[in-house]
Each structure stands twice: as C-alpha cells, then as structure tokens.
C-alpha cells in the first residue's frame, strides 16, 4: 500500500476525514505532526487537510506555513512528490508560496457551506482524474481566490478547477490551482466529504485515487 503523509497543525480539523478518505481508496495514511520533519522519500504523496489552523489568526494558513513540518514539505514539492491542499490546506500552500495567489474573505463576508459544481479547467496528472466536472461541497469563510496575474496563471495551465456558480467572489471563478509542474495542487471544495453515496456523492474519490495508484 502507498503511504500518504497527512499534515496536522494545531487547529486542523479535517485530518481524520482525510485519513478515512485515504483508507477508502486503499492507501496507507500516516500523521505528520507540525513540529516534526520527515524524509519525503518515505511517502508516495501528501495531503494538507482543511480546518482552522491556529484559529485563522493573522491570516488563514499564515502561521501553519511557517512551522517545521513545512520545511520538509517544501523539499517534497521540489522532488516532485504529489501534494494536495484542501480548503485551509490550500490556504497554507499559498502562504508557503508552493502555490500562487492568495485566499481572502468571501465576498459575502459569511461562511458558506453548500454542495456545488466545479469543472476541470486544466487537467492535473495526479488529482481529479480525467473527469471534467465534479459535484462537491464547500465550507469556508476565506475562499475567495485572488492573484495579480490570473491571465498568466491561465496561460501556464495553473488554473486547475473553476466554479460553475461562483460562491465567494473568486477571480475568474477559480476554485483550485496547481503549480507549474502540477505536483502541488490546492482546492477549496472538500473531496473527502464526497467519497460515497451516503455522503451525498462520490465525485471526491478521484482526488485521492491518483496518489495511491
């Protein structure tokens, strides 16, 4: 079984959900504590889960991005290991400059929890498979993606997924982005909450299957 590292910060709250999702696709999850460093070669991939790391103090993801475990994650990214950040995990990857842009407060200035549809804009080789659209839930207060250079991101194929109906005022309806080589990707919707029909849909499966296959 492929070993997947799951990062845990103080305030991470989707960690056990990610653990469950990785087990559902027959991967082997392992915790990576924020104070510890690790050898990237020991893992097939990494997930930075959602939540409210450090209570969103300062800015969402800002404090988590400056913890010891992130030094190892930077190394893993440079080695081309697949890394997926979800919701607060996406915010952390942006704050760590592993992904471009930033996530700021929703335009409506309220937390939004709902199911919605997203489409793949540029395919990612690890996450999301070849499907062109997904039905996934969102749950965030700071999900509005902003960047100085959205056209640039588009031309480099870094705009990964977009909302069909923009829930938060994200530039160009962007719901997820990837780095230039595609091994680091982040998205606001929660695929780990869409792994089976009893959850309300199973479109999230392909976001984890790629890492363990």
């Amino acid at each position, binding site marked *: 079984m492929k070993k997947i590292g799951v990062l845990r910060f103080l305030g991470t709250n989707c960690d*056990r959900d990610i653990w469950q999702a990785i087990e559902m696709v027959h991967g082997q999850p392992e915790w990576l504590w924020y104070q510890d460093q690790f050898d990237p070669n020991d893992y097939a991939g990494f997930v930075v889960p959602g939540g409210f790391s*450090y*209570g969103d103090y300062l800015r969402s993801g800002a404090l988590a991005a400056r913890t010891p475990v992130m030094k190892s994650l930077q190394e893993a990214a440079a080695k081309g290991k697949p890394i997926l950040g979800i919701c607060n995990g996406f915010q952390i990857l942006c704050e760590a400059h592993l992904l471009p842009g930033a996530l700021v407060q929703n335009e409506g200035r309220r*937390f939004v929890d709902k199911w919605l549809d997203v489409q793949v804009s540029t395919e990612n080789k690890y996450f999301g498979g070849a499907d062109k659209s997904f039905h996934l839930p969102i*749950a965030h207060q700071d999900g509005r993606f902003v960047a100085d250079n959205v056209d640039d991101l588009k031309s480099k194929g870094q705009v990964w997924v977009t909302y069909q109906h923009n829930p938060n005022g994200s530039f160009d309806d962007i719901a997820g982005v990837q780095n230039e080589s595609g091994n680091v990707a982040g998205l606001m919707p929660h695929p780990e*909450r869409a792994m089976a029909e009893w959850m*309300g849909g199973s479109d999230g499966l392909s976001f984890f299957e790629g890492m363990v296959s």
Partner: protein
Amino acid sequence: MTLEAKLGHYRISKAEFEKIKVVLGREPEGLEWALFSALWSEHCSYKSSKIHLKKLYNQSDRVLESFGENAGVIDLGEGERVAFKMESHNHPSFIEPYQGAATGVGGILRDIFTMGARPIALANYLCFGQVKAPRMDYLVNGVVKGIGGYGNCVGVPTITGQTNFDPSYDENILVNALAVGLFRPGENIFTSVAKGPGNLVVYVGAKTGRDGVHGASMASESFDDDSESKKPTVQIGDPFFEKCLIESCLEVMKEDLVVAIQDMGAAGLTSSSFEMASKGGVGLRLDLDKVPVRDSEITAEEIMLSESQERMLLICEPSRLKRIEEVFAKWGLDAVCVGEVLEDRVVKITHEGETLVEIDPDLLTESAPQYDRPYKDWSSPRKSETLPAIDVRLEQAALGPLATVHGNSREFIYQQYDQRVGAQTIKDCQFPVGVVRLPDSDRRLGLVLGCRPHLMRMDAYLGGQDSVIYPTLQLAAYGFKALALTDCLNFGNPEKPELMTELVAALGGMNQFCERFDVPIISGNVSLYNETKDRNVTSTPSTGLVGLRDIEAPIPAAQFQAANRKVLLLQQTQVHTTGAWCDLGLARSAFTGSLDADGLFGLQEALIEANEQQLISSSRVVGRFGLAYNLARMCLGGMGMSSVASSFPSEFWVSERLYEVIVEVDPSQVQALQSLCQSKQVTALEIGMTGGDQLNLESSSIKIDQLLNSYQAGVGESFGLA
C-alpha cells in the same frame, strides 16, 4: 457595605441569607459570600425546578449516565455509546449575541468531551422576536455568526436546528445548543466524581480572566432596561483553544491518566471544585496562587467566579502528572497542579499564604434551597368542543406560509454552519432529521429537535406532549427509533404561579410520553426568569432526541421523488388545532380532543416497519400550517402532485391535526402498506398521486416555481442576510 447592599451585590435574597446562617451556624464571611451567591443561584442549584425534575423518567436499561453528570450517556449496542445534552445561553446571547451564542456552543461541547466522548454533531434551537423588533436583525445575525464561528472552527458539524419567531421573544431571545459525542467500542466513560485522598487537582486549558464574573447569578435574573451594562458578565470564547482542549483531553483520557474530570462552566472554578468534591464525598485543597491568570491584579473572588472559557479541572494520581503535562504541552496548553484531594469533607481555599475558606462542600451543593413554588393543576383553557374556523383559502393555505418568517427556508441560517466536517454526515440541516453515520457499526444516528412554541401558547400540557411525540414521529418517518431525550426548559419567572403552572404542566405532558415510548430524559438544563419588564417568553421546553436506524436501505426523502406514485396520509388523528394560523391572525387559538399514547405508539411502529420493508420513498410528518402547506414543502424538490377527485372539507387541508404523516408509495406497495397500517390501528388514506410541475389540490393549482420563489425569498432579506 451594608447588609442590604451586600445581598444586592451577591444577588442573595433575605430569606436565603437566613438559611445560609442556619446552614453555617453563623453569618457568611469573606469569600463565602461569593460561593453561596454562585452555587445557590437558580442557574447552578435548580432550586425552583429540582423537585419536579426528580419525577422525570430516566430509568431505561440503555441509560448509562443521566442527571448529575456533565451529560447523559446511552448505550447503542455493538460497543457504541453516545453522550448528549442541550443547554441554554439565552441571557448572554441577548446581551452580546456573537459571544453569547459562541460560548453556548463551547460550553455544551465541553460537557460532552468531559465525559470522554468525541463530539460528532451539534444542533441549535433558536427563538427570535418579530423581524421588526428593536435590535432583532443584529441579534439574529450575531447569534448565527457566533454559532458558526465556534462550531465551524472546532470542527464539529451542525446537522440540524430549529428557528422560531414570535413577539414574546422580542426582548428575551432563546439560544439553546445541543451536542452529541460518540464513545467508540473500548473507549471509557469518565465522570466528575473526585476520588482518592492525595490525588492531585489539575487545572488545564486557558488562563483565568475577569470575564463572566457573576455570570451564573446574572443568568438567574430577569432583564430590565439595563441589559447593556451587563456586558462584562458575558464570557469570551476562543474555539481554537477549545479544539486543542478537545484533542488533549481525549488524549489523556485515552491513555487512562485521569481519575475524574469536569469542565469549568457556570460559576467556573467554584462549581467544578465544589461539585466534584461533593459527589465524591471527599474534600479538596485549592491554592489560588497556582491558578494561571491573565491579569495579576485579579482577586481571589474573581478567580473563583470567573467564567473564562476553555478550562477544565481534572483529578489524577500523582505519578500521572508528568505525562499529563506533556500531552497538554504538545497541544500548546498549560496543565498546572493547583491542589489535592483531601480525606476530610472540606474545601480549603488558600491565596497569598492565607486560608480564605474552609467549608464542607455539601453545604453549598446538597444543602442549597429547594422550593416547591406554588402552581395549579392544568385546566386547558383553550380546549373546546368544536374547532373555530380558519380564515384561509386553499391556495393561500399552501402558498402563504412559505412567504412568511414562519414557513420560510432556513437556508440563510444553516449555510453559515459547517454541516459536513467529520465526513460522517448523511443528512444535513435541509432534512427534517440530522443524520450521521456511526463509523464502527455503519448504522445511522438521527438527531432532531422538538417543542413547537405555537402549541405551547395554545396549551402547555399538549405542547409538552408534542415536544416529545412530534420529534419521535419525525424520527420514525425516516426509520429511526427514538432512544433518549435531552431538554432545555426555557420558562419565565417561576415565582409567578401561572408560569410555574405551565412548567409543571409541560413537564407532566413530556414525561407521560417519554415513559410510554421508552424515551428516557437523560440530561438538560433549566433556564428560568426569561422575562423582561414583566413580560415572559412563551414557555418553551425545547427537546433534542437521538434515534437509531438499523436498516441498510437508503433513508426516504422528504420531498416527492417520482411520478405516478400514490400519496397516502397515515392518520392517528386525535387532536384538531387551529395551529400556527393563530400566529398569522387568521384563527383563534383552540383545539379539540386529547392525545392517546397507545394509538401514537402504533403510528411510530407502523412508520418504522414501513421503512424496514422499504414501502415508502418519501415521507413527512404534517407539521405547522397543516396538510396543504406540508404537501407544498414536499413539492419543493420539483416533483408535483395532484389530489384525488374526492372532495374533502376545506378544514381537511388547513387545520393542524395531531398526528398525520404524508408518505409516497409505489402503487405496487400500497396494499402492503395498508395492511401494515391496519395491524397498527393506523388509517392509511389515499389523498393523491405524484407527477407534473404543479401542486394541484382540488380546484387550486400552484406552479412549483412559484412555491420555490416564496420559500426562498423574504427572511434573509428581512435580516440583511440575503
């Protein structure tokens, strides 16, 4: 300070002062004043309600813990158990809605994980005033944001809720929060019984500040014009701290390092230390110099009364302290030894080298006053022989309530709550019952709230019965057997006999049904003095019920699913009411008949068996505004229906009858359902057929688009939420 001034400051009545003198054999001194003020308050002592609460049914075999502990616990079988409890945070939420509601969520979560259970679901029961009442948009927005701000951050999904609006809450809103926690197989239940002289008393969590001092006694008073000045009695919450506290507490409990544990809720360190000692029949020594404080100027009295959030008190064997400190440090929290367990039944508090108090804890807990406040037998003043007319046409009966604050979508509220964190949510706040999956047994746990204030305004006894039976039937409609109940008794001033009469009547009604349906009442709280300037809120005994569904098949929908299916009405009609139409001024508040528990038990059985046999594809208990409105709700998914050709009297579509359930059935299953119903003495009346994009009732027809527009518009805009 004169005696009068002192009594006023500590909110102690003259009569209770006399009782304190008897209990102590002298006048109270120094810190004792503050201790009696807190622990003898209505909020901590339940002095007006205790004699009635003792009568409540909680003897079922599945009850593992009930009143007396931080939360009740029931056995679900297969090694799984759940702890759950509901608590009010009405007074603080009216003063400062965001923090009041947020700390209500924080407090109820601590009651759950104190027991060793991981919180898996939240729910909230809210009553607001009229949309146009002063400050109401601020209160609604603040409360909803506060609940979301706390629950979302700690990572516990909010899976169901109920929101009511009525002028009686204009100046005293109700904010009741419920939490459920799960013990997985092999996990231990922890209690707050202090044990073992020589064991250490350990303070964990956030530092103690001056917030919330006198909170418990404030919550035991009526409001006046001066509620703004009470802001300093409201606590400030930090959900990030709470999240770390949850994880660290569960970790030390998993390693079995803890003898006893209790959260510092109302009256903070005072109630936790005295209650733990009293329950264990032991004493405690507390050294206040060791208590971590935010402000070096804080006094001993403030340390004892502070309601700073996110703090716990635990008892451990001396050899375990080091490991406990390590675990809390890992989560960035302090764990500090502040005292020890004493063999003698005495709580000894020292500060700056001085002994401030040495007192038997039972004097403050067990000896607290209990009152049998005057009340009368319930006389049902609105019960009548015939039902008064309801002044509404059929089309308006279906459509009208959808556009009002009483029948509108609550999406604008629940969209601000994370309903899926934990990745076990099966049905979210959109559904009449919140449902999560039990991960070890793959069974379904249902959660639903009860108490319909419009029925409480009609009749306190009937409303009390309904607070149990309506949610029980809602669970049954989706295949869940109700297992246990928690409640929040939100009432007005108990010193007024007419209010006490309502309290006793409502509890009597609830208890009767809890016993017949074997739904033990395992936890809850009492919130009295919900009155402002002599005006009492509607007596509101809110309830929360958990149920279990042991059936693998999908849960029936709450909206019509497919065309050409039969629509049946399962009836055990015992009471006819004018219902919520009274709130719209379209009828006089009245009802006929009375409820019969045995008949309703049959309806519950019929519904659960219909689920087991997979006979129904959608269902809904007919609630507020009667049949036409509830059929409209079932059409909101886009599938319409038409009533059968036979003509019913107009009252049939509009009056609220207790109880009826709409079900959608494949024609091939109608006979099986009818014979099942017959065996349970339930009438199964065919009322229509699904199909089309309209709701056609007799000669009226409404497009579903029009229903949806009404349902979704309005409320959000009224509160600046849209």
